[in-house]
């Protein structure tokens, strides 16, 4: 009842991930040096990975770099993937989240939010709404901004839970935390997000 419905991809760029047997065969082909198989593997998962990176970093260029870095690593380490330990997508998400954290750490100093320096009313220019959001509702712009106000840890939890509809066990595997910790973070995320959205709605309607 409480699970969010699975994602309905509306673009040919974002095909559904294949089933385990098909995926296993595809990985075998990749490991045997089949370049076409690598391309299929990339096309089937690049949409998921790009969206995850974009959601976490809220910056298109950074998301593209993370996408490339993540797949470069995944291709190179494909032989190390163990389907007994985790699903392929979980493995990919873990790689992506790790690279997003690295990217954020490297950019932290030069992009420290202005709101930290001047807490009274200065909006964070680094969390800009993407061009696509200009066509979206004011509520969606508000939510995008609110997500940017969450701490990176809480944003990770929010994206994995709300957008990808993951169970807490899988969230824990990706973020390298226990399922209980994932639950606690999600509870906090929900409360904070609700509060931020309420405040923003009040401020922006004034």
């Amino acid at each position: 009842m409480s699970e969010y419905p699975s994602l309905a991809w509306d673009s040919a760029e974002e095909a559904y991930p294949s089933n385990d047997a098909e995926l296993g065969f595809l990985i075998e082909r990749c490991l045997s040096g089949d370049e076409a198989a690598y391309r299929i593997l990339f096309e089937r998962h690049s949409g998921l990975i790009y969206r995850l990176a974009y959601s976490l970093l809220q910056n298109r260029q950074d998301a593209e770099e993370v996408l490339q870095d993540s797949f470069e690593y995944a291709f190179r380490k494909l032989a190390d993937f163990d389907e007994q330990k985790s699903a392929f997508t979980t493995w990919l998400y873990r790689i992506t989240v790790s690279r997003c954290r690295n990217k954020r750490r490297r950019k932290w100093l030069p992009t420290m939010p202005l709101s930290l320096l001047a807490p009274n009313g200065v909006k964070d220019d680094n969390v800009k709404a993407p061009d696509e959001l200009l066509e979206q509702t004011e509520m969606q712009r508000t939510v995008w901004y609110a997500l940017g106000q969450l701490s990176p840890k809480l944003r990770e939890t929010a994206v994995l839970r709300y957008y990808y509809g993951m169970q807490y066990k899988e969230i824990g595997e990706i973020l390298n935390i226990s399922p209980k910790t994932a639950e606690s973070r999600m509870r906090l995320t929900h409360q904070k997000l609700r509060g931020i959205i309420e405040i923003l709605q009040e401020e922006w309607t004034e």
Partner: protein
Amino acid sequence: MDGIAESTAHQREAGCKKDMTHQEIHEQLSDYILGLLTPGQENEMSQHLAGCAACRQRVHDEREIGAIVRETLHSATRPEPMQLRQLMPPVPKKKRSGKIAANWTSRLAPALVLLVIIASSLILTAQESKRSMSIFFASTATATSTNTPTATVTQDIRSNINETTPISEMGEGELALNEIKPLVQVVAAPVPLQSPTPVAVISRTTTN
């Protein structure tokens, strides 16, 4: 879930007032929509929601947060057509067997060098041992160098040994080291100007 039952009774009486008990229910409503309740708690919550319109509205509002986040991310992060294909990293080169063989050779190279060094040492040691034996029992071995400074050391080894005495007839301690008195003579040699390194040449002579 006693709190829920208590609150449910309370709501019927007071119309869902936001007292502490009801606040707790609201907190559990968040857990409910986030999937954090046990099946038993979930069941009780469902029963409560069936009879409480205010809580149903609250559940709807809570779910709206997740829904709007999901819609926002979905529309905001949508890639442009063909955008991602250009971002595919290069496919890693497959390791060929020749490369593997080359790797093995490079790994074995230090071991091979070590083996050659050990074998050479053994051969040289054997040759040196053979030469020492011949020096001892032969008469004189002299090494000279043409353009190096030399110092000649003459060592009388067997002067105190009676060669006519068979070993079996020697008395105990007859061959003690202090009885072998080496006679050392150092002969200065002219130093050529172009000599890079002085070399000492040991010359052993047998005297009677």
